[in-house]
């Protein structure tokens, strides 16, 4: 699918999702009303810094939020089916078969005392009721397809005998074993070295293309997003602040936070003598009420334009183009605000 064009078939449809942690007087509102769709075969990059709620959103979709956390509102439809209404029995069938997950630390997700071949074979045995032999053979095939060398022998290995990159390949094999329709990958390459990262990203992209799997790629790294995503959503303080096709999101984002993220990361070969633009301040406390835009206290644009609405009222999504919108009060009057590239002053 070409970048930025939504598939006509919506696989995942989230509306008004809210997830809260803790009770008492000041619960933490980790996810505060998220609307998000993922089309069949689409790769969505979900970008945000720590504390933005991106992992909580991913776990909420899988119904893996544990007490004291709970989903307190909204709906999640997976191919028209209400995920929030599923029984535990339905959930365990749905996970693995229709939806798979890959976490950041593969070594901590694999069972240390079972051979990796059996860990890949297990979902095949449980869900497809394959015989031991058939499941094992299919596991070896899967290990080969994710690029594990000598898979017949490696299937007999235990997780501690694998490198980090190999362990992540095994996780991908487990997640893809049943050809789920949606794969959620939460920082899948953050713990890996850059040479291994490049190969794992390529593997994820090719697997999704081959099987028509949709991918929700949760990451803090815009470079990773640039490599894979069709569409990008940027989260800040529990909300999506901007969403659009990958090209404009990475070249001309409209929300000052999305812009700030882009300018704050040093880029190879492009920094000669320039100074990085940092974002002053830090993320807000999500247990305190925030009537307005959560980014307003750090926002230079608000300060420059002298906007009064930002602190008082939550901005709605303001359309920029057909599939591109941002939550920012400055947008209606923002024509040309970024006409001079915001990027970097000269270095002291």
């Amino acid at each position, binding site marked *: 699918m070409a970048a930025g064009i939504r598939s006509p078939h919506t696989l995942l449809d989230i509306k008004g999702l809210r997830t809260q942690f803790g009770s008492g007087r000041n619960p933490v509102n980790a996810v505060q009303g998220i609307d998000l769709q993922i089309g069949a075969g689409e790769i969505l990059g979900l970008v945000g810094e720590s504390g933005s709620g991106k992992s909580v959103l991913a776990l909420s979709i899988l119904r893996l939020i544990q007490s004291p956390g709970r989903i307190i509102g909204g709906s999640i439809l997976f191919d028209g089916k209400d995920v929030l209404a599923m029984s535990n029995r339905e959930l365990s069938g749905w996970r693995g078969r229709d939806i798979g997950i890959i976490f950041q630390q593969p070594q901590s997700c694999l069972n240390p005392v079972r051979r990796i071949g059996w860990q890949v074979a297990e979902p095949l045995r449980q869900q497809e009721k394959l015989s031991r032999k058939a499941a094992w053979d299919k596991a070896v095939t899967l290990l080969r397809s994710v690029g594990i060398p000598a898979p017949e022998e490696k299937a007999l290995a235990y997780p501690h005998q694998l*490198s980090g990159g190999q362990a992540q390949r095994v996780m991908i094999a487990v997640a893809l074993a049943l050809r789920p329709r949606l794969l959620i990958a939460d920082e899948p390459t953050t713990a890996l070295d850059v040479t291994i990262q490049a190969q794992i*990203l390529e593997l994820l992209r090719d697997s999704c293309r081959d099987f028509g799997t949709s991918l929700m790629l949760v990451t*803090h790294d815009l470079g990773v997003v*640039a490599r894979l995503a069709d569409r990008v959503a940027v989260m800040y303080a529990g909300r999506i602040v901007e969403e659009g096709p990958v090209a404009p999101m990475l070249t001309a984002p409209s929300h000052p936070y999305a812009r700030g993220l882009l300018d704050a990361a*040093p880029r*190879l070969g492009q*920094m000669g003598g320039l100074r*990085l633009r940092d*974002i*002053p301040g830090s993320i807000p406390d999500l247990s305190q009420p925030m009537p307005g835009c959560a980014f307003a206290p750090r926002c230079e644009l608000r300060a420059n334009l002298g906007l009064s609405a930002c602190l008082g009222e939550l901005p709605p999504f303001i359309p920029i183009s057909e599939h591109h919108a941002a939550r920012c009060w400055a947008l209606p009057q923002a024509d040309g605000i970024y006409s001079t590239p915001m990027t970097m002053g000269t270095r002291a």
Partner: protein
Amino acid sequence: MSLPPLLDVNGLHVRYPIRKGLFGGVVGHVSAVDGVSLTLNRGETLGLVGESGCGKSTLGRTVIALQKPSAGNVRFRNQDLFALSAAELKQQRRFAQLIFQNPRACFDPRRTVGSSVRMGLDIQELLDPSEREEAVAEIFRKVGLRPEHRFRYPHELSGGQLQRIGIARALILKPSLIVCDEPVSALDVSVQAQILNLLSDLKAEFELALLFVSHNLAVVEYIADRVAVMYYGRIVEMASTHALFSSPRHPYTRALLAAVPTMDIARRDDPVPRLGDPPDPANLPTGCRFRNRCPLAFARCAEAEPLLVTAEDGHGVACWAAESASIDAGPMTAAALNG
């Protein structure tokens, strides 16, 4: 040669024993640092890059005498660090400080951060005790915090604020060298930029030399004057930042650079370098230790290990192929790397 360098590392080796079995018998060694020589001048920043396990952190810790080498020596401010008495070493420690990756893990949770920062002054008995509190307040301002922050405990501060305090703790002793071991890797990108800018301001203001250890090539390019690339205990390439990033000569450096994801979506489908899996550090290949992953390897690479040879332009590389000039000096594409 006018002034001697601030730091002069010569033929440094650090070997760790591999122990196995019930009684922990030594069954082999891993050479985390395997014959490294480098120099660092006052006010200069040397970036040290490489993948996990390549020995870059061990090297950083050894040059400030937190780890004993198995061979080789380190001259710092014209003194052989490992020939000093304990008292003399303590005096030198003041001038060489360390900033860690995870600021949360390196502060005592039961002390206020101000007292952690002050501790260096107390131990080194610098300043009059009555002046120390004012010095702490002053250094907090210097790193962009309010003096009142010094009465807080680590859990009351964000990661970025704590890393500023980590810098303050190093800076308060007026060191001439700071080893920064992945100082921004645990931070979010917006905070990472704050800390990088702070470090680059401070190094100019205090004429600090930095040994900046990182796996993040873009960060190193931003902060460093010179860069050394490490591969399993050896420096395989060392040059000025501009030369290293614009015309890398070692195939490993080229692969590292080609693997960094670019923000340029026009190039998103470019093939990525295939280096294969890293070797077992206890059992490196003979000859050049990179040869089993190297697209350019030829017979000679298995026979003898290439040494770091510095060309007239100051660009050092340890590679037989680069030395015989069989590759041109332009940036290499991933396609060429894959053969």
